[in-house]
């Protein structure tokens, strides 16, 4: 499927500022900084989680544990997709029991990815809280899930897609709205 870019909605500077703001909000909402850990959903959520951890370090002067979660094995549409998606590694090298987990993803859309991530996380233990941080909330939820921290709310139509590009995987930092080409 091909996509045609319609509009650039965030540039590198705006992405960075959004992450700084989210980091401040996390620090403000959570008194017990020592109990915090950050887990990103692969691929881009995990990269954003690393950056968020850096922002947190400058704010709270502390290194928070960071993990990466691959949700492929928890997807509810495996029987519907034509080919098995590639499974990547889940890397959570710390005990999540009783921790406050900041779950990070790039875009919040239907909520199904987050549902998978919640199931996957809980298989690692029993966190005290799970809070959700996303760079973009684009609406159209299909499940009762909401973000605790959102970099930007972008109203979209369902024909559109929101593409978050991250330097490590896409060569540039930006968020664009694109539309499927017929």
């Amino acid at each position, binding site marked *: 499927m091909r996509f045609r870019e319609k509009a650039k909605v965030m540039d590198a500077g705006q992405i960075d500022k959004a992450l700084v703001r989210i980091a401040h909000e996390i620090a403000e909402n959570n008194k017990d900084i020592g109990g915090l850990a950050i887990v990103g959903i692969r691929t881009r959520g995990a990269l954003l989680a690393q950056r968020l951890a850096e922002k947190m370090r400058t704010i709270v002067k502390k290194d928070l544990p960071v993990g990466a979660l691959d949700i492929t094995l928890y997807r509810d549409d495996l029987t519907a997709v034509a080919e*098995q998606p*590639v499974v990547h590694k889940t890397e959570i090298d710390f005990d999540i029991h009783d921790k406050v987990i900041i779950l990070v993803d790039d875009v919040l859309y239907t909520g199904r990815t987050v549902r998978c991530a919640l199931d996957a996380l809980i*298989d690692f233990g029993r966190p005290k809280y799970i809070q959700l941080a996303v760079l973009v909330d684009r609406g159209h939820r299909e499940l009762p899930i909401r973000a605790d921290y959102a970099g930007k709310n972008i109203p979209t139509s369902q024909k559109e897609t929101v593409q978050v590009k991250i330097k490590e995987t896409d060569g540039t930092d930006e968020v664009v709205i694109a539309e499927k080409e017929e």
Partner: protein
Amino acid sequence: MAVSWKRKDLLDLESLSTEEIELILQTADSFKEISQRPIKKVPTLRGQTVVLFFFEPSTRTRTSFELAAKRMSADIVNIQTNASSLTKGETLKDTAKNIEAMKVDIIIIRHSSSGAPYLLAESISPSIINAGDGSHEHPTQGLLDIFTIKEHKKKISGLNVSIIGDIAHSRVARSNIWGLTKLGAKVTVCGPATLMPPEIERLGVKVTYDVKEAIEGADVINMLRIQIERQGQSLFPPIRDYSMKFGLDAEKMRYAKKDVLIMHPGPINRGIELTPEVADGPYSVILEQVTNGIAVRMAVLYLVSGVKKRIE
């Protein structure tokens, strides 16, 4: 990785492409972590039924497949041949047709006849995984051996791998040879001349009857189990002679490279193929092979489970 998995079955390594083998290894690498979690389970195969259909005794392979399927939330049925209708005269194909009629998704089969899994794959729609057929192939064992080598050596291409023992009767040897040569390793086989299949060189391996030559320069030594149950005794030298000539002991290990890996598919005949100081020694990765076996089998179950069931 550009390649995607399109096979209903895993019957052998001979027919797989290099990319398909690498896809299985990469997928297995992602699955390994699941067995280290406090809750060793993912919901991926929920609602799918896996049948373990073992016509030969097996502890390791059957348990490994069973754990792999359970850790992916599949439902599992064990069929043991001494308790099944096969002892009442039903043919393999009829038994399989009946299992198919019960709407199962994956059948894992071990059989003493080479080719038995192919017969099932052609005649019924569930995915078939070969867990060892006669002296033909044991693909998941080959894959877990390669996975274990790759974990230690970080690559396969260019490595010298020696397989020592009863090559003629060994399905483990054949799967290793196919997989390793496809990935670019240099494979040497070594064993008694009576147990060396004719024209084995055509698989792209070097043959030697001198165990010292097989040990020297090898990055990996895979010791095969001697399979007393599979031989006419006339082919096999007396156990003591075999052990002295081909068994690996501290004395022969002096010829080995300092960072050699010693592998064995199990079960070990202690004191015959390997002396205890070698089997339990610092070079031995035998128990890692067992651990990795579960990750490799989870990967195979995952990949075949995604292919839409169809029959020509």
